[in-house]
C-alpha cells in the first residue's frame, strides 16, 4: 500500500471533473420534475449532446461553440418529448424511454465519422497568483469553465426555485397542475420551458464527457450516467443542495476508489467498486428521511379539459 502516491490536489480536481456531467444532467432533470414532468430520456439527451458538442467542436475548432450546440441538441431532442407528452398527451415514462433509445441510435449514426478524432482542448482557468497556490490553486482555480458553470447553475437553480416568483409558479405547476391552471398559469407552456431547460442541461453534461472528461467520441459513451442522474434527483429529494452533495459524493467516490485500487489499498476491490452507489444512496436517504418532497403532479398527464 502506498497512499503517498495519491496527490490530494489531483484527486480532488479529478473528482470534480467526474461529478460535473452528473450534476449538469441532474440539475436539469430536477427542474423538469419540479414542474411535474418525468423525463426518463436523460441518457438519450446526454449522448445526443455528447455527439453534437463533439462534432461541432471538431468542425469549428471551438469547444465553446460545441457546448452551445450540445445544449441546443439536447434541447431539440427534449422538444420531441415535449410535443409527445404535452400536446399528444402520451405516457411520459414510455416517451422518455423512447427518447433514450432514439438518442442512443441517433448519436451512433451521426457519430460514425467522428471516431478516433481529438476534440479541441477547452483549456483550464488560469488566474495569475491564485492558480499557482499549492493545493487550492489546482482545486479551486484550475478547472475548465464548464465546471464552474455547473456549480453556478446549481446555485442559480436553488435561488430560482426558492426565492423567485417564477420558481414558485413552476413548483405550483408541479405540485398541482389543476390548481395552477385554475389560477391562470400556463401549465403546458411552463412545462415545455422546463423540459427544454432539462434537455439543454443534459446535452451540456454529455458534451462535458466527450469534450473534457474522456475526451473522444465513442458510441454509447455515456454508459448509464443519465440513469444515475435520474436516480440522484430522487435520492436528493428534488433539492439542488442534496443534488450537489450527491453528485460530488458519487463522482468523488468513483474516482477515489480507482485511486485507492491503484495505490494497492488492502480493501477488497468488490467493496471499493460498489462504494459509490452504496454510500451515495445511504447518505442521501439519511438526509431526506424526514419527509418526501415528491412533486404532487409528477408524471401525471395534464389537459385543460380535465
Amino acid at each position: 500500500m502506498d497512499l503517498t502516491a495519491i496527490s490530494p490536489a489531483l484527486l480532488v480536481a479529478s473528482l470534480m471533473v467526474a461529478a460535473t456531467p452528473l450534476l449538469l444532467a441532474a440539475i436539469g432533470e430536477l427542474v423538469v420534475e419540479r414542474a411535474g414532468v418525468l423525463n426518463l430520456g436523460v441518457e438519450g439527451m446526454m449522448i445526443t449532446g455528447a455527439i453534437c458538442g463533439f462534432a461541432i467542436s471538431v468542425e469549428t475548432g471551438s469547444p465553446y461553440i460545441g457546448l452551445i450546440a450540445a445544449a441546443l441538441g439536447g434541447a431539440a431532442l427534449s422538444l420531441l418529448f415535449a410535443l409527445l407528452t404535452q400536446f399528444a398527451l402520451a405516457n411520459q415514462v414510455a416517451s422518455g424511454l423512447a427518447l433514450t433509445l432514439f438518442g442512443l441510435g441517433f448519436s451512433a449514426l451521426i457519430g460514425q465519422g467522428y471516431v478516433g478524432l481529438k476534440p479541441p482542448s477547452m483549456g483550464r482557468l488560469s488566474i495569475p497568483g491564485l492558480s499557482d497556490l499549492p493545493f487550492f490553486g489546482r482545486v479551486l482555480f484550475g478547472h475548465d469553465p464548464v465546471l464552474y458553470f455547473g456549480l453556478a447553475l446549481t446555485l442559480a437553480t436553488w435561488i430560482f426555485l426558492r426565492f423567485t416568483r417564477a420558481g414558485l409558479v413552476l413548483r405550483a405547476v408541479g405540485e398541482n397542475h389543476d390548481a395552477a391552471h385554475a389560477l391562470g398559469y400556463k401549465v403546458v407552456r411552463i412545462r415545455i420551458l422546463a423540459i427544454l431547460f432539462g434537455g439543454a442541461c443534459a446535452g451540456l453534461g454529455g458534451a462535458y464527457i466527450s469534450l473534457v472528461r474522456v475526451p473522444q467520441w465513442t458510441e454509447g459513451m455515456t454508459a448509464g450516467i443519465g440513469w444515475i442522474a435520474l436516480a440522484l434527483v430522487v435520492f436528493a429529494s428534488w433539492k439542488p443542495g442534496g443534488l450537489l452533495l450527491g453528485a460530488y459524493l458519487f463522482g468523488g467516490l468513483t474516482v477515489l476508489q480507482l485511486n485507492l485500487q491503484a495505490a494497492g489499498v488492502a480493501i477488497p476491490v468488490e467493496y471499493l467498486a460498489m462504494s459509490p452507489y452504496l454510500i451515495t444512496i445511504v447518505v442521501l436517504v439519511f438526509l431526506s428521511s424526514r419527509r418526501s418532497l415528491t412533486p404532487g403532479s409528477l408524471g401525471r398527464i395534464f389537459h385543460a379539459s380535465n
Partner: protein
Amino acid sequence: MKLTRRMLMAASAAAIGLATGATAQDKTKVGFVYVGPVGDGGWTYEHDQGRLAVEEEFGDAVETVYVESVPEGPDAERVMTQMALQGADLIFTTSFGYMDQTINVAAKFPDVKFEHATGYKRADNVSTYSARFYEGRAIQGHIAGNMTESNIIGYIGSYPIPEVIRGINSAYIHAKKVNPDVEFKIIWAYTWFDPAKEADAAKALIEQGADVILQHTDSTAPQAAAQEAGNVITFGQASDMSEYAPMPRVSSIIDNWAPYYVARTKAVIDGTWESVDTWDGISTGMVGIGEITDAVPAEVKAEALAMKEAIAAGEYHPFTGPLKKQDGSDWLAEGEVADDGTLLGMNFFVEGLTGEIPQ
C-alpha cells in the same frame, strides 16, 4: 437502472431482428450477441468485423443478426433464446460472462449451434473459441518494460477472470525480464465498456506515476486520456486503435475473428459442424500485433518482432519456467512450459505482482 436501459435496447434490437427474420427461411441465419456497442473501437468492433466478413463471404446464402450492449447476466439468456426462436442456426456469444447462459439456452435448442468466446464450458452443440491474447501481452510487456521511465506500469483490468489474469501475468513477466525494477499498478474497472470510467482509471494511474497504460477494457477512452496527459504510452486492445498512433498507442493486439467465423458458418452450411475447442494465437493470425510505431526505439522493436516470430513458430512460450506464484510457491521449473489447462483456469498472480485478485 442501467440494466433497464440495456434490457430495453436489447429488446428493441431483438424486435428489429424479429421483423427482418421472418422473410428468410432457406438462408443460414447467424446470430451474434455483443457485450458493447459495435462502435466501441475495440472488442465488439472486431467481432462485428468478423460478422461482416461472414456476410461478404457467403452473400445471400446467409443472414446475420446481432444484438449489441447485452449485459452479462440473466438478460443475455433471453436475448439468445429470442435469437434461437427467430430461427438462428448458429449463434456466437462473444463475451466470457455469457458462459452459463449459453450452456442453458443451448440445452433448450439442441438443433441450434452455439459458439461461446473465451469460455471453457462445452456441450454437443456448444463450441468454445478464444485467442491466445497472452502471446500479444508478452510482446507488450517487453516494450513496456523497456520504455517506462518511472518504472510504474498501469493496468486497467475489467473483471478478475482467467483471461484477464493471464494477460497481466504475461505482460508482467516480460516487463520484469527487461526491467527488474518495474512495478504494476492494477485497477479493476468491473466493466467491459464504460468510456468515462475507463478514462478515469487511466487518469488515476497516470496521476500515480504510471507512464505506460495497458488496458483490458473495450473502449479507446484510456488512449484518449493518455494522449491528453502526454508522455504516456498505450497499446491498442482487441482492435488496432491506430487512430491513436504513433503516440500514445505504440503497438496493439488485434483480434482477428473473421477467418474463424467464416469457417464455422461454412461448417454449418455444409452440415459438418462439430463441437470443438479452438484456442489460436499469433501462429494462425487470430492474434495480430499492430504496427510498432517509431516512438519505440529500433532495437526494442526488433526484439519485440523477434519474440513475435519465435512465438508464431512455436519456439517460445510466454509462460516458460522458472516461474513462481505470487505466494512464492513453485509453479514452473526451469524450461517447463505451462499447460493449457492451468492457463485456462488461471486464478493466481506470478511472483512479484502486488495486490490480491478479487475473488
